[in-house]
């Protein structure tokens, strides 16, 4: 049986094909939850440390500049860009635009690629230009 590949598959319970739009939808939720739990905790800790004074801030800074903390910072920055871009995509879709399959797929991929690109650019800037200066 042949199928016209330009037509969408009906999402019938278990019969569906994984697509970029689904990936972005679930990424938006995962990055949102990650930013809320990890990002929220680090953000409050930073403000708390600043308010408490020099010693408290030094303790925070010690953890923040620990070499393995870099994984958390890079992860948070990627989650931030991904959530921001897929959030902007949601704004466009909320006004009723961008539902045609090719357009929808293009922007779904675009948020994923742009988020990775922006994360790479940010860390290139921090590690090469900021720290080298």
């Amino acid at each position: 049986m042949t199928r016209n590949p330009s037509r969408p598959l009906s999402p019938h319970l278990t019969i569906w094909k994984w697509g970029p739009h689904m990936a972005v939808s679930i990424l938006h939720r995962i990055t949102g939850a990650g930013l809320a739990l990890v990002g929220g905790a680090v953000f409050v800790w930073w403000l708390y440390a600043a308010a408490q004074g020099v010693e408290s801030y030094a303790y925070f800074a010690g953890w923040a500049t620990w070499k393995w903390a870099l994984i958390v910072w890079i992860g948070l920055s990627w989650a931030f860009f991904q959530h921001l871009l897929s959030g902007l995509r949601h704004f466009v879709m909320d006004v009723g635009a961008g539902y045609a399959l090719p357009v929808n797929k293009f922007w779904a991929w675009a948020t994923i690629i742009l988020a990775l690109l922006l994360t790479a650019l940010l860390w290139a800037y921090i590690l090469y230009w900021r720290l080298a200066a």
Partner: protein
Amino acid sequence: MTEARTDKAPLPVAAEAAPAAAAAAAAGHEAGAHWGHERLLSAATFALFVWLAVSLVRLPGFDHGTVTLWLRQPLAAVPMLLLVAITFKHLALGLIVVVEDYVHEAGARLAWLALIKFAAAFAAALALFCVLKTALGASAG
């Protein structure tokens, strides 16, 4: 009198039940308002995080002195207070949607929703207080 309801036979609504019916009708309107409110919150969160990202990149350093000096400026402290209030509301609404979608057992759902609301309220209050303490407090030695 037939048991099946038709559109011409409205439910017998007692006079004292009318406010409840009105509230139910209004709930449909509130869902739309809630949807719009969520989008407005998202837009505000977006704008404030663009402000925060630009501000942090422009800071000459992240040491205690630099950060506290920055937060003492009215045009840093006030956006930061707004950012905290709006972001924790946005964050709580997002986590609530996730729990509502994936936690189906009534007791567990109620517990998660309560935990999210309490934790978000506490974190937001703590963060707001800390921004105010930094902005208004005596210069830390």
